[in-house]
């Protein structure tokens, strides 16, 4: 069984409890990440893979603590490098369900290089970016998605920089699945994560996960509830790449949730092509023990 062929809906042998660990999160009360964790447990229960067949990889940051709060195999790695590690896991064992989670700094600042390449390789990962527009763990500095002009402890007079647009980046990099959710709509967020997992290829889900301690008032959960506009309600067609791009450009101004783009004809994944190559070449192999025969000269 592979990640893209999960247990059919309606026959789930697991409940959300099976995916939750007994570690107490270090997150501040009111942090959006609690909602992301809950939505993740629910989505995993809906998909129904046993926790030991799931690997959740993160980098460093508040949100990157999330693997420890699940009962899956977790890897809380180093800053910015969750995607390469997750690709190594998935390529080494394509039967696993591999998820990646982390903050906007992890994914679009220090680890920005890796997003483009994970996407163009189309490794079947579900990447959840918990986007809070701030560096929380280091106590409130600018992040790559901070709006221009934001005053923080590292931009006392306001930032000069345009924010990164994670949705537009991932669409441009060629991701087959691009979505945005918010913990203000738990059912919607759960459904997006589940849809991302079921998508047979790289899936990117940006989650507007407000920082209750250093974030701006207008981004908190209460305000989120009022701002949120569901793409589905707007009649958005997830197969329409150009429309997805147009709506993604409103990142930072509008808070659209839902699936921006889902490729109607998903491309082959790296690991499926690797499997084919192995099948093709394995018959030509001598045993590992006779590898030195390659150097014979007679």
């Amino acid at each position: 069984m592979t990640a893209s062929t999960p247990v059919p809906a309606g026959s789930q042998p697991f409940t959300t409890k099976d995916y939750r660990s007994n570690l107490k999160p270090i997150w501040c009360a009111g942090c959006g990440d609690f909602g992301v964790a809950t939505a993740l447990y629910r989505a995993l229960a809906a998909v129904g893979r046993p926790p030991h067949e799931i690997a959740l990889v993160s980098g460093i940051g508040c949100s990157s603590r999330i693997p420890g709060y699940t009962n899956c195999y977790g890897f809380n790695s180093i800053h910015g490098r969750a995607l390469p590690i997750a690709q190594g896991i998935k390529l080494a064992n394509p039967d696993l369900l591999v998820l990646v989670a982390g903050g906007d700094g992890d994914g679009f600042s220090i680890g920005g290089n890796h997003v483009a390449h994970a996407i163009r390789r189309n490794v079947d990962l579900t990447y959840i970016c918990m986007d809070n527009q701030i560096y929380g763990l280091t106590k409130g500095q600018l992040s790559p998605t901070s709006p221009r002009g934001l005053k923080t402890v590292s931009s006392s007079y306001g930032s000069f920089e345009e924010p990164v647009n994670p949705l537009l980046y991932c669409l441009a990099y060629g991701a087959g699945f691009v979505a945005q959710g918010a913990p203000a709509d738990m059912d919607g967020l759960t459904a997006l994560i589940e849809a991302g997992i079921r998508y047979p290829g790289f899936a990117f889900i940006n989650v507007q996960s407000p920082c209750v301690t250093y974030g701006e008032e207008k981004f908190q959960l209460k305000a989120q509830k009022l701002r949120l506009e569901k793409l589905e309600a707007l009649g958005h067609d997830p197969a329409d790449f150009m429309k997805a791009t147009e709506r993604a450009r409103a990142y930072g101004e509008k808070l659209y949730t839902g699936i921006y783009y889902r490729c109607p004809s998903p491309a082959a994944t790296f690991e499926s092509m690797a499997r084919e190559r192995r099948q093709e070449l394995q018959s030509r192999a001598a045993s590992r023990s006779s590898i030195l025969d390659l150097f014979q000269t007679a």
Partner: protein
Amino acid sequence: MGLFNTPTFSVQASLMISDLVIGMAGAGGDGIVSAGESLIAAAAREGYYAILTKSFGSQIRGGESSCRLRLSAEPILSAGGTLQVAVALNWEDFLKFGGELPVGSETVVIYEEATGVAPGQIPLDRPRPALAVPAPIARMAQETAGTLKAKNTVVLGLLSGWFGLAGESIRSGMRRKFAGKGAEVQAGNDRAFQAGLDYAAQHPLGSGSRRLPPPAHRKPKLLTDGNDMCGAAAIFAGCEFFGGYPITPSSEIMQFLNREIWKHGGVLLQAEDEIAGLGAVVGASFAGKKAMTATSGPGLSLKGEMLGLATIAELPLVCVDVQRGGPSTGLPTKSEQSDLWAAAFSAHGDVVRPVLAPITVADVFPVTVEAFNIAEQFQTPVIVLSDQELAQRKETIDPIDTARLQRIERRRPAAADLDPYVRYRITPDGISPISYPGMPGGNHLASGIEHNENGAPSANGAVHARMNEKRIRKLAPLGDRDDLFTREGPPDAPIGVIGWGSTAGPLIEAARNLQREGLAVQALAPRLLYPVAEKVYRRFFASLRVCLVVEQSHLAQLYRLIRMFVDLPCPCHSLARSGANPFSPEEIAGQIRSLAGLDPAAVPSTPAPTR
């Protein structure tokens, strides 16, 4: 354990100096390196011991190129020193290689007649070679094959004729090589080779004549270089994942594995950068696979943080660093031994990361396999320090008895270990059974943040101290691994020499030559560089009155590393210089001779390295 006392690099006390060292240089298109390759392939088929090194200008294509080939009926450990035969297709390019192609008073110099230089006027006179022989190489190529591209084939004919080198093997090898190029090219090439042979027969060298005795066993040998050997060792060891990024001079390891790893059920990822390459390896190791990356100095610098992650998450992996001249871009195509400290110490926090180094191309095989074994057994990253010299030189090699090599697998949790599973359990030997995603009941959190035995993040000082102690204590058995050292010469000899990597070969040959001269010298070649095996060094130093550490590093990195951990009971000197030109056995022997002439009592006890 005896693992490293296999015939591939065993000590042959009765080594005869019955070898021929040939150096050739020409312009980029002259195919001089290709001629060297043809010669060593023929030598391998005939059963000769041979080493071929190549040297190029830094141009992407074209420019000058040279090679040096040492042939012997007996086992050899270095590419030799002064040339017995020098071939110059033009003088400008030959002279660019300077010390890499040293001409001495016994050298026979063969050169292109069209250079117009009279034998008495050649630009080599310090010292003047034994014989200078002009030959119409270009003319013969043009007349027989209709192209100057056949100049290298003419040279092969000349060398084969004058020095009795494996004519039929060269000819049949070239036929195979040109098989796809059409009958005309093959026939032209045949004629060019014959022209060289005939010219040699018609112009005997007289006093310059040199003949190589036939090999004792005419059994074909293996032929390869250190990078391909490293890739083969990874396959043998059971490597199922390679992640890396192209970098000179290590890329051929990735290229070899790209051809082979799929056939053995593995995967290769050419990553977007050095960090991602190692990151994917860390992930694959977490997923339960034996995994490797390969790089050179700049890549090792970039991989530092990820290596630290593998140390604290206790994940096995092998990271090969094919050293080149540094710092920064440095000398990408030339050898140096200056990454030792980076390999041992480029980590923040208290880290012990094993570092191994092979001493010959043949040795790359068991050393790389052992790197996997140590990684898997101790759940740690292991660095293999190869160098450009070993990585890109070709050697003929006796068959390796792979049945003698162990392949160690990581310790998996038994049923009792899973009830409940404690990933980082503090065990008597410090090694905790390791599960993998997919194993029921083995679920755990791996992390770069300090963690308790359960894997839960912890900032508690007592926990940190306990876990540091565990991670370092588990490696203690490495301190007794004297099988990872080659020690040879009389064990009570008062003079000792130490050298590693590609320097160990010429060092051991120097010691053997001096022993034949009657000087009591013993040599130590460490394959385990870090952690420093204090007991092994102490035993070596026990009988010494004076010691010399030889290495290609301006800062004398091994000399200082040993002194950091071992109190030296005798004066210990350093022969240390920057890279590019490898040491020759003569150079090292000269230094030992002058050291032997010293009264050890008169030598300061903590001398500065020779600069």
